[in-house]
C-alpha cells in the first residue's frame, strides 16, 4: 500500500507523489488497455467455459453415460498441469506451422491461418482461448458434481408434466445449480484477472501491448522497468477488484438461496 504512493525505482530514495500513481491507472491508455484486456479474458475464461459446461451438464444429466469417470479425469487434467507447460504446448499449436493452422486448412478454412500469437488482433483471443480450454474442465466437473445432488424424482416429475429436454433443463437443472454456477464464476473470473504465467510465456504482452494484462504490468513495471510505485498501485487496484468481484458473486448466490 505505502509503496504505491511514491515514485520509486527500488534503489534510490523514493519521492512522495500522493495519488499520482492511481491517477495513472485511470488515465494511462496503456494501463487502461491492460484492464480492458482483462475484461476480454474474463469472457474467455468465465463465460465461455460456463456455457460449454452447462451444455455438457445438460447432456450428461439426461442419461447415465458409461465412461463418465474417465471423461471427468480427462477434462480435469488441464487443471493439474503447470501453466508454463500448457503455454509451451499452445505456443507450438498456434505457430504458423502448428496444428491449429493444420486443422483450419483441413477444414477448408485455409484463409484463416496465421501466426496466431504474433497477430495484433488475433493474439488476445488466442490467449483467451487457452484459458477457455483450461477452465472448461473445472467448470464442467463442478457442475456435474452439483447435478449429482439433484433428486431424480425432480426429473421424473418434469417428464411426466411433458417437459422437453430444454424445458427440463431450464426448470429443474439450472435453478438447482445456482450455487455451483456462482462458485465457478468466482473461480474463473479471478483466474482471468490474475493471468500471468500464460501471458509471460506465450506473448510477453506482445505484439506491442496487445495482450498485456494487469498482473503482467505489475511484474513488468516493478521488476523490469523499475517503476515500483506504479506497479504497487496497479496491484492494489487489482486486489480491490478481485475482492469486490468475489464478494459480489458470493453475495448474489447467497441471496438467491
Amino acid at each position, binding site marked *: 500500500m505505502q509503496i504505491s504512493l511514491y515514485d520509486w525505482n527500488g534503489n534510490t530514495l523514493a519521492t512522495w507523489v500522493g495519488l499520482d500513481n492511481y491517477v495513472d491507472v485511470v488515465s494511462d491508455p496503456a494501463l487502461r488497455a491492460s484492464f480492458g484486456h482483462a475484461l476480454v479474458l474474463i469472457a474467455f475464461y468465465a463465460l465461455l467455459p460456463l456455457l460449454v459446461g452447462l451444455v455438457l451438464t445438460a447432456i450428461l444429466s439426461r442419461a447415465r453415460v458409461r465412461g463418465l469417470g474417465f471423461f471427468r479425469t480427462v477434462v480435469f487434467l488441464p487443471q493439474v498441469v503447470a501453466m508454463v507447460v500448457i503455454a509451451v504446448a499452445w505456443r507450438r499449436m498456434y505457430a504458423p506451422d502448428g496444428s491449429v493452422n493444420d486443422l483450419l486448412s483441413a477444414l477448408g478454412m485455409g484463409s484463416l491461418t496465421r501466426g496466431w500469437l504474433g497477430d495484433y488482433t488475433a493474439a488476445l483471443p488466442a490467449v483467451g482461448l487457452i484459458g477457455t480450454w483450461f477452465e472448461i474442465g473445472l467448470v464442467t466437473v463442478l457442475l456435474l458434481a452439483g447435478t449429482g445432488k439433484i433428486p431424480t424424482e425432480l426429473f421424473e416429475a418434469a417428464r411426466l408434466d411433458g417437459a422437453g429436454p430444454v424445458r427440463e433443463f431450464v426448470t429443474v437443472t439450472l435453478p438447482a445449480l445456482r450455487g455451483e454456477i456462482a462458485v465457478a464464476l468466482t473461480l474463473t473470473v479471478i483466474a482471468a484477472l490474475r493471468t500471468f504465467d500464460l501471458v509471460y510465456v506465450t506473448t510477453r504482452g506482445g505484439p506491442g501491448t496487445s495482450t498485456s494484462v494487469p498482473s503482467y504490468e505489475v511484474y513488468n513495471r*516493478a521488476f523490469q522497468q523499475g517503476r515500483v510505485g506504479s506497479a504497487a498501485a496497479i496491484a492494489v487496484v487489482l486486489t480491490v477488484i478481485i475482492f469486490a468481484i468475489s464478494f459480489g458473486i458470493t453475495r448474489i448466490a447467497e441471496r438467491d438461496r
Partner: protein
Amino acid sequence: MRVSRGERTANYVVLVAFAVFALWPVLTVLLAALGPDDAAGGSVGAGVLGLHPENFVTAWDQGRFGSYLRTSLFVSGTVVVVSVLFSLLSGYALGTMPFRGSTVLFYLFLVGIMMPSEAVLVPLYYDLRSLGLTDTIWALLLPQVAQSVAFGTFWMRAWFRSANRSVVEAARLDGASTWRILWQVLVPLARPAVVTLTVLTFMWTWNEFLVPLVMVVSESLRTAPLGLAFFQGQYTQGFTLLAAGACIVATPVVVLYLFLQRHFIAGMLEGAVRE
C-alpha cells in the same frame, strides 16, 4: 432414465469431442517429445520402434532439468511438510477450542487466502531484500509456506469442526491430553482430508511460477517451471527438446493426479477459494 438411441450416440460424440479437445495440447507435446529431433536436421537414427525416448536424456542434460527438479522437489517437499504441520495445529485450535479473537484470526487467514500473490509480491520482494533473503532458498520457501498455511488452516478447521465430538469427549474422559487427542485420535481420522491438503499444496507449490520468477536469480535455485520458461527462451531452434522438457516438468504432478484424482478433484472443488 431412458433416452433414445440417437440421443445416446450424440452424447458420446460430444463427450469424445471434448475429451479430444482437452487432450489435444497434451498429445501435441507428448508426440513431439517422442518424435525425431527437429533441430538435429534428420541425422539421428531410427530410434526405438520409431520413437525417440533419448530426447528426454538430451533435454535433461541441455536444459539442466536435473538441478531444477531437485530444487522443485526440495521446495515442494519442505513447503508441504511444514505447512501441513502448521495447518493441523492452527486448524485444530480454530476448529475445536473457542478462544478470544479466534474469529478475527480466522478472518485474517481468509484474507490470506483471497489475497492474490501478485498484490503482495512487490512489497514482499523489498521486505525480503532488506532482510537479505532474496535469491536464497528462503525466498522460495517462506512466501509459499505462508500461502499454503492460510489455505491449510481454512481446510483443516472445516474438518475439525465437522469431526465427531463424542470421540473427543471419550478420549478426554480416558484422560488423554489435548495434544494426544490431536495426534492419536483426530489425525488418524482426518487422513483423507490431510491427503487432499498434501496433494493440493504439493501441486500448487510445484506449479508456482511468479514467486520463483521474482525471488530468485541464481540458476541453481530455479524451480522446474521456471527452468522450462528459461529453456524456451534459450532453445529456439526446434520444439522436440522443449516438448521433452515440458513432459519432465509436468510428469510428477500428473502421475500423482492419476493415482489420487479423487483427492485433487474434491479438494479443488470444495476448498475452491484459493487460486
